[in-house]
């Protein structure tokens, strides 16, 4: 049987340059934003992290936000407030 050609079913995702803002040398006096993903106990975990950042790393304060749910990005209000009111943000996905 003669050979034939088949077509590739995949695509390459669109390339997006991602750059990180410079990391702070120290958290001393910094305002920390914490983004909670609504999973059970995630608020407790993040509050513990906030307390540790204050006690052990000298962070000035922290603020906790709650996303609408775990599957969506932080909504605009969180982004806006974070942009205006904090120096660093801790976010993560826990389950």
């Amino acid at each position, binding site marked *: *049987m003669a*050979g*034939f*050609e*088949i*077509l*590739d*079913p*995949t*695509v390459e*995702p*669109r390339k*997006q340059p991602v750059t990180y803002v410079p990391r702070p040398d120290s958290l001393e006096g910094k305002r920390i934003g914490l983004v909670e993903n609504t999973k*059970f106990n995630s608020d407790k975990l993040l509050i513990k992290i906030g307390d540790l950042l204050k006690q052990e790393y000298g962070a000035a304060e922290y603020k906790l936000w709650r996303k*609408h*749910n*775990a*599957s*969506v*990005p932080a909504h605009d209000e969180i982004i806006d407030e974070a942009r205006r009111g904090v120096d660093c943000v801790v976010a993560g996905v826990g*389950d």
Partner: protein
Amino acid sequence: MTTQLTSKRYAVEDPAHAIEFCYQQGWTDGLPVVPPTERAVGAMLDAAGLEPDKEVCFITNRQVAVSAEKVAVNAVMAGCLPEYMPVVVAAVEALADPKWGYHGPATSTGGAAVLMIVNGPIAERLSFNSGDNLFGPGWRANATTGRAVRLVMRNVIGTLPGLLDRGTVAHPGKYSYVIAENERESPWPPLHVQRGFKAEQSTVTVMSAEGPHQFYNQLSATAKGVLTSLCDDMKHHASTNGQPQYVVVLAGEHMRTIANDGWSKADIQKFVYENTQNSVAHLKRVERLAGAITPADETTLRSMAPSPEDVLVVAAGGRAGAFSCYIPGWAGGKKSSQSITKVIQERRA
């Protein structure tokens, strides 16, 4: 089709080599695929009246544009007939709807599949099964259209099991999870008409969904009796207490029993909504809600879905047998994922 196909091409020796090559590339769902030749892909596009570069949808969180060509390639691989292509396209369009919310149901440990419910004249014309062995094998349209959607998710959008598809146990509906409503025998308006479409339109409704949960009632000859069994089963299923929607699939015997009592779909929705509520105290006792039980918890009721309308009633399944089923939506709550109904455009200009 007037535009050239732009997908990368691979030379293969024969069909068996092509099938094995697709396995090696990681392009399959574990089953063999039909080799996607230019001719087969062209026929798929022509049947839907689509140019290959037409953007079917854009998946924001993945930054992926899904072209008609890639949908067609995957539909060929899934084993679709060309005339199924408009159904696959409509379902893929629905996945990009923000209310469906691609990222959550595609990725979640909750293991949702894409349930597709086909309504309207196209269902019979393309021989979608709405009867015996409803979720089982044996019908090409049901087996391949859902498979095509899953292959698009895998190959185009990058929803790879173990990477961006992290279902903990998931379920076999992830291969294909497609039913039609039995509009010919149903005593009720079909789902798409309830949702504002015309009876003569054809639609596909997609819902992120757990597997079907079967229930049994051969004793009762009343609507209330049958649905009481359903509700007793449904209210105790140990899902996440956050289902945005449910589908209740009523098969032949139950459908006739309920209709003989004069119950409408709205009556069924109301009954199911009201009779599946659990007390907060119960949910705490069985460790499905956290916290100590308070006296108020004994009388505080929690519903399974946000409203009666979020219990979607579909008439489908075999004529014989006192079985029906319910299907919980994926667990994220209504802000995470809602069912979407799309018109199937059979031939575009």
